């Protein structure tokens, strides 16, 4: 056969091999199934006796078997390998392919590989965003040389596996975050005597669920606490911290009705137990008679005082430092008189901050759009006029009340 044809045949064979592991039909499979089929195809193409995918656990210190076929199949999936130790551990540590032509006690971690009389091993890292997220490893009983092409094929399969597992992880995180966030932010506030209250939460287009929160609660004394806040960050981490901060604030609200005192205590708690967190919040306490409120603001946009005729303007208060910024920050409170029909609108920065526009423009627009409507309509109007019925990039929380 002429050399050119030989080469063409070889290219075609190579292409076929690559297609076997990049087959788009695979993307319809569940992740576990996809990993298993990838391993089967790799094993068939390379003629190996075992093929395994290990994934990095969240600590980044151990690899855990996620899928395996061949010799190790009957073994438990929960085999853990420390990073840096043994064959797979070394692949993960180096972040590069490793080939061992003759297995011995020094280069493998798992007794299993020795017991199964494996002779040659090849492994490549699963990479995502420049980090090692797992290892794909194959092995043979007979001595075998792994060529550069073999390694390249393993790399392609590893990429495929990495995309699938990372997609599942982020999907899992999204679902968990959403569930947590929904449980913490009820879409209907509780009924509070003497108050008309409404709330809104809108996840951001860019960041998804973030750390914005609101809360409304009535205390045994008849006081009512209303809070809006923003835990910096997004995703599951921010939602978890938000949940802790939210319940800590509730706990301190039972100790004192002074909002500045509550925020000071919360600040100390955050400094000690969440040193990485930074939280802004505006916290208002309404008296049992519903004739006055006291408000303290920690690095947050000033709440808007709603008058009885459909207008409103930011309350006159000093904005103290966010919670978690510096130890023992000074906190102030202001008192406001309330009457029937007046109230407050509290919101987070996502509502009014627009790229490359002064933040005051967004606030002015919010003020200009206020009406004499009830709390529910106020929230609806504010979010629809400022966000144009589209999700902004940042998440948004809004809380409004009027005295009834």
């Amino acid at each position, binding site marked *: 056969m002429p050399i050119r044809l030989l080469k063409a045949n070889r290219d075609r064979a190579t292409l076929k091999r690559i297609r076997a592991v990049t087959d788009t039909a695979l993307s319809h499979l569940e992740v576990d199934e996809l990993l298993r089929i990838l391993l089967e195809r790799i094993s068939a193409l390379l003629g190996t006796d075992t093929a395994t995918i290990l994934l990095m656990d969240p600590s980044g210190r151990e690899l855990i078997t996620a899928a395996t076929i061949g010799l190790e199949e009957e073994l438990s999936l929960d085999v853990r390998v420390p990073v840096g130790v043994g064959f797979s551990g070394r692949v993960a540590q180096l972040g590069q392919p490793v080939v061992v032509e003759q297995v011995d006690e020094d280069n493998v971690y798992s007794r299993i590989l020795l017991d199964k009389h494996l002779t040659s091993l090849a492994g490549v890292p699963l990479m995502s965003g420049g980090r090692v997220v797992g290892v794909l490893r194959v092995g043979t009983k007979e001595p075998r040389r792994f060529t550069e092409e073999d390694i390249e094929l393993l790399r392609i399969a590893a990429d495929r596996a990495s995309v699938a597992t990372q997609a599942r992880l982020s999907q899992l995180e999204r679902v968990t975050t959403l569930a947590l966030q929904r449980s913490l932010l009820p879409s209907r506030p509780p009924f509070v005597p003497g108050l008309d209250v409404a709330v809104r939460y809108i996840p951001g287009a860019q960041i998804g669920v973030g750390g914005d929160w609101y809360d409304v609660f009535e205390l045994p004394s008849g006081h009512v606490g209303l809070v809006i806040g923003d835990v910096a*960050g997004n995703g599951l981490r921010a939602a978890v911290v938000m949940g802790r901060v939210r319940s800590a604030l509730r706990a301190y609200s039972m100790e004192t009705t002074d909002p500045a005192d509550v925020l000071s205590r919360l600040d100390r708690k955050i400094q000690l137990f969440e040193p990485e967190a*930074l939280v802004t919040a505006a916290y208002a306490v309404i008296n049992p008679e519903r004739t006055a409120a006291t408000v303290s603001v920690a690095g947050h946009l000033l709440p808007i005082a709603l008058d009885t005729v459909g207008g409103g303007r930011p309350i006159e208060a000093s904005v103290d430092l966010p919670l978690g910024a510096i130890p023992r920050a000074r906190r102030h409170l202001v008192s406001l008189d309330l009457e029937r029909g007046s109230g407050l609108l509290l919101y987070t920065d996502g509502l009014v901050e627009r*790229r490359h526009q002064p933040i005051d423009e967004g606030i002015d627009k919010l003020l200009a759009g206020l009406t004499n409507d009830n709390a529910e309509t106020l929230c609806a109007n504010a979010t629809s006029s400022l966000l144009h019925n589209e999700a902004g990039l940042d998440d948004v929380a809004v809380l409004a009340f009027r005295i009834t």
Partner: protein
Amino acid sequence: MGLTVTTQQRDRAVRVGVDGDIDIATRDELDSGLFGAIASTGTGLVEVDLTGVLFIDSSGIAVLLKNRRRAEEAGVRFRVVAASDLAERILRVCGVWRLLNEGLE
């Protein structure tokens, strides 16, 4: 929009110039830039220039404050010495300008 963080030694201070929007997508770049500046300063002074920053959200403010604290713990002075009107206004509205600019509460 991307973010550019440049660091240069100027007289006694490490000057960190920031250009672009600081948000959830770029905060990590700012964080590592500031961290590097704090770690590398020999004179104990880091000056941050936000003249090229036209947008900063709450996650960006968090990064500035966290690094200010990180610097303080390392015995390094950390100041935002300049900012665009838009950025300064946001930092003022959020009550953190004086702390970042003058080191005062």
